């Protein structure tokens, strides 16, 4: 289960989902920062320290594919271990899945997302890194 030190970066433009996912982790004492698009997500990732990134794919300004690619390149250039990036998509068609994995996503989940699925992702990926 999610413990106090687990740090999650949520990159998601949908305000309702931002509130929803914050409500999901509220009782778990999990620190989750929110970025409203890929560009903000990349900057937060570079300046922060996260166990897991949850990345929406379709966003304004910069989409999740591009943000993931930039994060992976930055990790490589800075000799960092890869942080798990779990993609959020409302279109789980094969082409999109292959594209997000090719850009460096670790896994993907399909929106809408239930509480159990969201917590399961944090447990599976973030805790594994600690």
């Amino acid at each position: 289960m999610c413990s106090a030190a687990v740090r999650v970066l949520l990159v998601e433009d949908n305000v309702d989902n931002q509130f929803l996912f914050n409500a999901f982790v509220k009782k778990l004492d999990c620190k989750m920062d929110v970025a409203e698009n890929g560009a903000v997500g990349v900057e937060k990732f570079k300046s922060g320290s996260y166990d897991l990134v949850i990345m929406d794919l379709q966003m304004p300004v910069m989409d999740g594919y591009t943000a993931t690619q930039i994060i992976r390149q930055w990790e490589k250039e800075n000799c960092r271990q890869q942080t798990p990036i779990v993609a959020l998509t409302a279109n789980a068609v094969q082409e999109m899945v292959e594209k997000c994995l090719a850009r460096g996503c670790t896994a993907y989940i399909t929106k809408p997302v239930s509480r159990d699925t969201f917590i399961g992702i944090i447990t599976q990926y973030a805790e594994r890194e600690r």
Partner: protein
Amino acid sequence: MIPSDNGGPAGVILVHVDANLENLIPRFLDNRRDDVAAMEQALAQNDFETIKSLAHGLKGCGGGFGFDEISRIGVTLEQAAKAKDRAEIQKSLGRLTQYLTIVEIVYD
């Protein structure tokens, strides 16, 4: 009116929502009413991209809050917007408006 298929009074749709989300629901439903207004306006301007984008949002968030029907309507609306199918868009917006009018929430 849509008949109840979930044990509620006739003409009402009962939706069971996690009590931990109770304070988020009024705003969530208000935002969906805003979506309907925005999509109606977009349809009047033949702005199918805006409808597609808003429908995509409906699809991605409805079920997470417990409103599976909103996600289903989002799927239909997104496809209709891609096909520029005005009749289906109008029909789905009517379906969403009616749903938002008659939905009743049980927090548990």
